[in-house]
């Protein structure tokens, strides 16, 4: 079981992710709707893993990831992106993301990525 911080600007996606993670036996310790809120929450909550959207207002997922890795080089991050953002996903993996899932995703794919990242 992992303690997870869910970061997505869409309230609907935060709930989809939260429900899937909880159903998979994980604990969602917090949610954030933008990059700055995600960084603050990470410092406060010290989660085992972060699910991170790419397209977000103000500070996007890639910029957030780079700052997160600066704060904690051991941070475990799974990127959640829409189809068509493959270059960004590649950049995110290079920046330290452990895995990615493409929206819309199957619950098993998300849980598999989370379990692999925290293993």
């Amino acid at each position, binding site marked *: 079981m992992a303690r997870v911080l869910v970061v997505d*600007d*869409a*309230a*609907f*996606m*935060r*709930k*989809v992710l939260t*429900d899937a993670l909880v159903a998979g036996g994980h604990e969602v310790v917090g*949610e954030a709707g933008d990059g700055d809120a995600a960084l603050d929450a990470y410092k406060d909550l010290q989660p085992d893993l972060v699910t991170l959207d790419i*397209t*977000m*207002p103000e500070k996007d997922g890639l910029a957030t990831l780079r700052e997160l890795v600066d704060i904690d080089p051991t941070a475990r991050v799974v990127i959640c*992106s*829409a*189809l*068509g*953002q*493959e*270059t*960004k996903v590649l950049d995110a993996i290079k920046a330290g993301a452990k895995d990615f899932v493409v*929206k*819309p995703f199957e619950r098993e794919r998300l849980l598999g990525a989370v379990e692999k990242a925290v293993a």
Partner: protein
Amino acid sequence: MSPADVASAADALMRLGASTAEAVAKSLDAICPSPVERGDVTVVPGEESPFEGFPFEDGPAVAVSVHYVDGVTGGNVLLMTAPGARAIAAAMGSDAVAAPPPSDAASADDAPAADGPTELELSAVAEAANQMFAAAASATGVVLSQEVEIAPPDTRLLDSAAAACEAFDATPHAVSATFVVCGEPCRLVQLVPNAFVLRMTRALDEQGTEQLSGDGGLSALGIARRTEPGEERALDDALRDIRVRVWAELGRTRVSLGAAPELPPGAVLELDRKADDPVDLYVNGLRFASGRLVLTDEGEWALRLEEVAGRTEPVLAGDGFRPPAVASDPPADAGFRPPAVASDPPADAGFRPPAVASDPPAGDVTTEEEI
């Protein structure tokens, strides 16, 4: 802007519209339980509002806009009725997502709106639009040979076409595509600045005219192809499902705005074509072919194609375009007959545009495979 530039701009807009509409339709198909009905993709004339004609009278419509942030400028608006938005949200799983407890800070987002979709449903629709337009931006990026990034979606309720015009910055160009999603009308509007058109035109020019041969005429129809082998086949297959408007044009003329309403019954307007000149066939606003009008044995007009854009080999006699309802070939002796408007009408005939020169009703459209 020269006539050739205007044609190139229209071509670029049509290709942009077709590829984006296809990406949106495919995303909707993946989300919705019932097949998405694809409608027309049209370049909206400059003087018209791309939001006009949407059924706002049935209640506030939901508009999700997604703008480009890198690579190109402009944006997209997905307009849907409130029931349509709720249906898409349900298909996304909004009704299956557990409602948060009232004390949850995030629950402020999820309070029901005064009417129409809840905030959670609007968020689900916005996420759907985000996924659609990310895929569409990717397709556009292939044409431009450059990555195109999108901003997060912005969702709002609009109660009129005028409100929609106020909500989104006007652009010199707009492309509209219609769909029926879960039984509800849905419209994609692309707001396109001049700079985007110029970039698309340049990119398409660089791809060369070789696409006119060997691609089943898709390029001549204003529909872009990808250049990478696997993607090219998949995109072509998908594009072939797009329904396009087809019409024949007998000829044109110009009259002053003041004179047009004064035309009396019985007036004769001379067009710019001779009686034995070929008639042009248009597909989604682009001249695609020319041919001769013939009469079928059922007494309906048909067009026998003689020349098709991008094809140098002679068109076979059997390549004629007919309305889908006409099953048999024209009789061998059915030659060209000048349309009624080109000859003196009977005294009581009055002026009216010939039926084949106007846009056909929706039920008469045909797909490019039928041409």
